[in-house]
């Protein structure tokens, strides 16, 4: 099974990245190619349902799981069998966060490997940037 890993570092503290990873309602703000997310599964499957950009009639139920050690959120697509494991590690020197992602691509989707690498890399950096916006140390006061 093809797999790949990617990672980046953000100055935002773990809490800010964590809030984005655990709030599927905000996935469209950083996950490239996702237009909307419904907060439940579909036909009794999955925990949330994601809809790709431009495909409002193509529901993709996903299961969300955290591993026993914490720090890692796994999003498994129940349609394509793609698995995204997002991992957070505090960076004590900067009080920032290292965000890592491990992606498993099923054999029958192997032709999408390069495309997925690109999407995931962009999403990773968008996630880091969005987390910085929530960082109280750098973010401007939110408008009332």
């Amino acid at each position, binding site marked *: 099974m093809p797999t790949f890993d990617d990672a980046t570092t953000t100055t935002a503290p773990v809490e800010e990245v*964590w809030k984005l990873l655990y709030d599927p309602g905000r996935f469209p703000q950083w996950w490239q190619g996702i237009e909307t997310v419904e907060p439940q599964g579909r036909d009794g499957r999955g925990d949330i349902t994601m809809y790709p950009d431009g495909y409002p009639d193509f529901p993709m139920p996903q299961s969300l799981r955290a591993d026993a050690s914490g720090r890692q959120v796994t999003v498994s697509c129940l349609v394509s069998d793609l698995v995204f494991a997002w991992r957070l590690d505090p960076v004590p020197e900067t009080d920032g966060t290292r965000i890592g992602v491990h992606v498993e691509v099923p054999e029958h989707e192997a032709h999408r490997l390069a495309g997925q690498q690109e999407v995931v890399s962009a999403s990773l950096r968008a996630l880091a940037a969005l987390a910085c916006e929530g960082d109280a140390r750098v973010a401007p006061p939110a408008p009332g």
Partner: protein
Amino acid sequence: MLRVRLLGELEVEVDTRLVPAPPSRRAWALLGWLALHPGDHPRGTVAARFWPDVLDTSARASLRSAMWSARRLLGRDAAELLVATRDRIGLRCATDLEDFDARLAAGELEAAVALCRGPLLADFDDDWVLEARDRHAERLAAALTRLADQAPTPAAAVEHARRRLALDPLDEAAARDLMDRLVDAGERAAAFSVYDRLGERLRTQLGIAPSGATREAVTRLRVGRPPAQRVAPAERVAPAASWPLVGRDAELAALLAAAAAPDGMLAVLAGEGGIGKTRLTHEVLERAAAGGARTAGCAALELGGPAPFTLWAELLRDLAGELPPPDPAATWPEELAAIAPSLPRRLARASDGLPVAIVPELARARLFEAAVDAIEHACADRPLVLLFEDVHLADAASLELLAYTARRFAGLPVLALLTLRPAPERPEVDALVNTHRARGGTLIEVDLPPLPRGAVDALVRSVATLAADAREQVIDAADGNPLLAVESARAAAGGGAGPPPSLQAVVRAALGRLEPGARRVAELAAVAGRDLTRRELGDLAPSDDVLGALDTGLFAPHQEGFGFRHALLREAARANLPEARRRVRHEELAGALRGSAAEIARHLRLAGRDDEAADALAGAAADALGVGAVGEAIAFLAEALELRPGDPALLLDLAQAHAWNGDDVAAQQALDAALAALAPGDHAARAVAHVRGAKWYSGALCHPQRALDEARAALRELQALDEPDRDVLGTALAVGAWGAGVTGSVQDADALLERLDALEPFDRELGYEAANARAFRALLDDDLEQAFERFRETVTSAQAAPDRAYAAWVNMACIAAALGRLEEALECATVADVRGLPPLVTPLHAIRASLLVRLGRIDEARAALAAEREAAERSGIQRLLALVDHDEGQFAVAVGEHERGAALLARALDGDAAVSRPVARLARAEALARADQPDAAEAELRRVTLEPVGPADRPHVLVARLTHVQAMVALARGDRPLAARRLREAAAVWRRPLSATGAADLLANLVDLGRPTVGTVEPARELARVQDDLAALDPLRT
């Protein structure tokens, strides 16, 4: 000066003035009893001893009246002689019995015997007198025997021997002794008369014939042969029980004081084998019993691998005969029948049926509570002394139960007296003692040292009359060990050249003289590992053989049975037996004993009958599961599988035990192995195996997907059968439907339920499973009303099983709460009858507390939490205590007790409470922030992000709550703009649709945590809290 003479009719002398016996027999008897039992005694104990059949108040009034009469007899110094405080009474006097003991110890036999004017307290026939009289008679007999040995002429020896026989005309050893001495004195005809009278007495009074030893003696007499052994050890030394306790005055006093204390305690008596633990503890029990206490004892089995609660089974049997009838409404006799099946019968209960079967964890809780009830009953009217001998060999479950009951000793007049040897080490015993101490329980620890030389000398003199050099040799060889001293002295008195080098030599010599039948009895007793009961003995050997074995003096017959006088003697006898003979004896015992399956298994293994042992071990495992001893059950089954590898039935039982132990990996491995061992075409057996697996996964292991998988596998096997078993099919369908419902497989659940409908009507078992499956199916539809009604059906089906009743009522309570019907939810949590079992009572109180908080009934909630803590502490189960910390912590945070809340939640998290850890950490972080500890709060928030998150943690609400707490941290730091921004951010999350419905919340929590959710998340309520904080921050803008 008050002198009381007990050795004959009671005589009381004050300053040499003989006090006349008064008209009041009670006052007279009271003086006799107090003189016989030196020291001070609780009034209640004495009153209960003399007036046992009346109310305590009446008994105490009668005691006061008797004391008034007694004081009048004693004259002007009465207050100093008959001492009475508010609680205790005692007599300050000297007695002839004390003189007797002292003279005996000093070897002044003539003087000691001269003190005996007649039977002890000859003018009384109360039970307490008879017991004391027998003990004294035995000691007097020993002294007379020694005097006969030392008599200057045969005629003088005959007189001493006659007097000895007069003490107990049924004493065969005394009769043989007299016969021998009459022959020595040239009176053969008189010797035959002694035999004839003895035979007549034995026939008419006991219905038995003289023993082999006596018949042999008279045969020798007829043929004119001299006695085969002129001096038989057992006949020339004091009977075992009559040896004085020497050199242990301080220990005895301490233990007697503990036995009379109003508050319960644990006493641990440690020392090498033979150092005198048994002698001392038996003295304590005898004296405590004479003082009015209720006593019972038990000893660990020596064979290893005992059934769980073996000690308690023996203790309860012993105690049963001493107990007054329990309240007819009490359930503890029936509950304890799980470990002592004869208990209800012994207590004359109408029903001896076992309680309804429940899962092991609850079986254990129920058993433990029943044991506490039994102890409370046993000490309700008098002190209770319980002896646990040789706890270094005890089974772990017995020690656990002892630790549990000891936690409840406070305020009860109970002494648990434990004896142990330093080896083998038992960490469980150390843990028991340390825990008891740590919990503030009262504890006495006594290490028995070797006896000083002077004490050994006194002991040897009291046992046998030896020449000075022989006595010195015995004392040297004993090296302070009283058992060795006694046995060496007995052997030396038997004519040995010197003291035997070891106990083994003593025992070998004694048993070597026995007839084959009697030797067989001794060998059976040696390998039995415990005393044999009278019934077992009756099945194993004729009474003549038993009497023959008794002649060795190595055994101690008692009311319940027969065994070696000391465990070391039994060990020595066993060590002397050749291996082949041992195996034969073990096989005989396996066929005759009425013990537990575990004990039978042990004998079968030692007999080399491994295949039969495997069956017995399976039975032992089933017994263990019945009393909640899962670990022991696993050990029994693992051992059985060593004897019969790959046996599918054993493997299935093992899988079940692992499942009940919460070990899903081991359970699955054993289940797979069982299935691999079953033939592919054996569809019926394979279906049963899969259904059993499905039930574990729907219950103890709570893994809905696997339950569904196993149920499907069972259904596939059943398809291959023309007429599948209806119960197996129904269970597979019901459990499968449950699994499908919980995992969200709607179509599967519906299909299975449709097939299940066709099997109606159901029996109770299947009715419960079916209603449960339908309830969860309704939850999947978010139809809480329907689910509520289905769970109501499970209440009816649950019947008397407390775990099912709990599940049914709690599910109803949770759904009623989710529907907003809080009063109804409270009612459900209140009426659930779970028999007071802590693992079930504790969460019920927690649910009530949670509901009461939401109803604004804070004081009642606080009381419910106190009840929850009390139930958890009663159980001593750490995970329950951690849950209570969590519940109290959440409550404290809710009512504004922030620092206390933070501390309790920290303890709950440290204690690994089975709760949502991120939610608990968030509550703690909020408490810290509101308590003006922003740095600590922030650190706690960081920990939230490092916790694993599952569905039961409600991940959809964690983000909003974490953001809310971030606002509280900012506020605590005075950063009001940031606080406002965080609050608005939190409000925005709460306004979005949540990702899980109320029913899904309930499902997730039940499945992941096994803990009910009282009500679901209420976004509107949470949003209102955020807005309240925002308004407080910026009242003008909101």
